[in-house]
């Protein structure tokens, strides 16, 4: 979300019409005040010179209300000066021809002053507007190009434009129908046939305002939106390229695995199948061959399961189906699966009243099946320990084996798919188990890490978030 720390005051980019009634009132008041001020001045100078004071009133009005009211003030001032201060006072009559000259000079000076003041006023206002436009463009650029995606930045950009134009409900609508623009919106051309609308909201039916926005605000906004669109596209391409590169690595590793890990058991099965048909079989040989077929096929089956798990994880198709599940249940089921009737190889310890976790039970089961198989493979006949408890508001499960342990290099790469320690040929595994463990743990919002003391064993520590525990179970309906 965008938070603008210091809300910028934008000079008004579009003039609001100023009240004419106010202008007329101000004209009358300033002329009256000037007329009064001149009375004391007459004591110190000739009656003609203080007329200059009226120029102040003319300048004041012209600066704020423009040329027309400046001229009006000039005329009213001339009349008032004549009536109140040029003898004969009290009448709009000029007796002395010198006074005629003075009044004419005053009038010309007043008109010129009005024109100059109006010009200055217009230029200043224009400069202010341009500064406002520049500020708006800079701020919009920061919002549109500095953030994550265009879609995220759009509401804040709309707000900035709205503040700058004094339209609280202005809105930028991407890919809107240009025909829908109607009277209250300005169409922004984004190139490549894309359009956006700058909807000006309630005051959008002001034609002058729309023209101003179209001319001064829209071009910068179009350029920025195009840049933001380009940036989005480039980012998407980068992500895609990275994913492709990663999937290339995976594919290469996969091919290697397929060529070796799948072919070996297949060869054994085919050979055994041929052999079992031999008429020269002796006693236990047929049984032996049958066992070869079963064992090798089971190895294949386990490998296919793992490849499937991994490809689902890689494809992002392993969306967990979360539900309340009991870790004790999950771990015990996994032990049942791995132990194959020999549960004594595993020592389980669960704290009493462990809370339920919100996770995909089947995926967690795969996590523990892989971890337990792994641990048993390396434990050298020692018991594998599993301990589950709540630590620091999280569910913590540790799988501990007393195998040879792993070096720092091995630890660093242990969770990579297809990583196998070259030195551990004595413990053939697919090299997929730990990658699946990490994939499923992380998919369920958890974390897994390995700690090892070479020569003393390895600990795999899993942390799972504890969701807020639901309320008490409903009371069963009377049966």
């Amino acid at each position: 979300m965008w938070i603008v720390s210091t809300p910028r005051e934008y000079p008004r980019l579009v003039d609001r019409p100023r009240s004419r009634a106010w202008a007329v009132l101000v004209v009358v008041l300033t002329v009256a005040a000037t007329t009064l001020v001149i009375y004391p001045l007459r004591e110190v100078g000739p009656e003609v010179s203080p007329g200059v004071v009226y120029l102040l009133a003319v300048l004041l009005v012209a600066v704020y209300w423009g040329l027309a009211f400046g001229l009006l003030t000039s005329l009213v001032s001339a009349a008032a000066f004549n009536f109140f201060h040029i003898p004969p006072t009290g009448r709009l009559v000029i007796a002395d021809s010198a006074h005629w000259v003075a009044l004419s000079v005053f009038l010309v000076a007043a008109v010129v002053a009005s024109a100059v003041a109006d010009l200055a006023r217009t230029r200043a206002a224009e400069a202010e507007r341009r500064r406002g436009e520049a500020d708006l463009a800079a701020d919009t650029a920061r919002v549109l190009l500095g953030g994550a995606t265009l879609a995220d930045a759009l509401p804040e950009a709309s707000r900035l434009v709205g503040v700058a134009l004094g339209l609280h409900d202005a809105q930028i609508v991407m890919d809107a129908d240009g025909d829908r623009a109607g009277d209250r919106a300005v169409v922004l051309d984004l190139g490549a046939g894309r359009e956006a609308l700058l909807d000006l909201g309630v005051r959008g039916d002001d034609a002058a305002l729309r023209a101003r926005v179209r001319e001064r605000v829209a071009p910068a906004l179009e350029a920025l939106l195009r840049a933001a669109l380009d940036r989005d596209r480039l980012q998407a391409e980068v992500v895609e390229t990275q994913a492709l590169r990663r999937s290339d690595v995976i594919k290469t590793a996969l091919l290697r695995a397929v060529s070796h890990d799948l072919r070996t058991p297949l060869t054994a099965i085919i050979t055994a199948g041929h052999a079992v048909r031999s008429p020269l079989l002796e006693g236990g040989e047929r049984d032996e061959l049958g066992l070869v077929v079963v064992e090798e096929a089971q190895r294949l089956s386990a490998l296919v399961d793992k490849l499937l798990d991994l490809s689902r994880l890689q494809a992002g198709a392993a969306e967990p189906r979360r539900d309340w599940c009991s870790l004790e249940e999950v771990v015990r089921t996994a032990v049942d699966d791995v132990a194959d009737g020999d549960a004594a190889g595993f020592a389980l310890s669960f704290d009493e009243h462990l809370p339920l976790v919100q996770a995909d039970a089947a995926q967690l089961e795969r996590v523990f099946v892989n971890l337990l198989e792994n641990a048993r493979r390396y434990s050298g006949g020692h018991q594998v320990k599993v301990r589950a408890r709540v630590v620091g508001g999280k569910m913590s499960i540790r799988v501990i084996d007393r195998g040879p342990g792993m070096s720092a290099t091995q630890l660093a790469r242990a969770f990579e798919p297809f990583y196998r320690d070259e030195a551990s040929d004595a413990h053939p595994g697919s090299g997929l188990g730990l990658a699946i463990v990490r994939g499923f743990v992380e998919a369920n919002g958890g974390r897994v890490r390995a700690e090892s003391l070479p020569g003393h064993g390895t600990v795999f520590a899993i942390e799972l978030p504890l969701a807020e525990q639901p309320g008490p179970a409903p009371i069963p309906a009377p049966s």
Partner: protein
Amino acid sequence: MSAARLRVLVCDDELQILRGLKIVLREAGFDVEAAQSAQAALDAAALHPPEAAIIDLVLPDGDGVDVCRQLRGWSQMPIIVLSAVGDEEIKIAALDAGADDYITKPFNPRELIARLNAVLRRVGSNVDEPTIRVDGLEIDLAARSVRRDGEEVHLTPTEYDLLRILARNRGRLLTHRALLSEVWGPQYADDTQALRTHIANLRRKLEPAGEPHYIRTDARVGYRFIA
């Protein structure tokens, strides 16, 4: 051991699997009626009702869930469905349509036969038996009391209801939904959290050693009581 061999209907469109299953089942003491399509299976079952059925969930002319539903329309024979990995929805649909259990391909034939015998034992037992006795556990349905190795186990009414339903369907995999609807009522059919909590409590009382002994978990699907 009775002389009459039980007949099992096996329906799978893979001839290679049928071949192997025939031999394995024959060796386990069953007569096999093989069918390669849903229609053939339904016809064979109607013509000569078997004692149990093993149905593949994916068939060329329909799905196994339908076959289960149609068989259940007129028969209480145990049904085991064969499923592929990851078909949780179809598995659960088949169980809710009346299947007793499922087994995932590729399976160990010995495991299949163990499951088959387990569901057959449920049918063989007297439905109205007043007391269920399994491996040291004694559930007196009339007195609503439970004893383990002769010692009374104190259960809450909910725990007792869960145990009773599981035990009366022993060998059968009951889905979370089925258990919840049965014990709490259909409006609570999705409250798996309550179910897991009560099952955990029930286990603590029944299986103090910590070994899952009487109740088996199927992570995403449900629970079964051992037969």
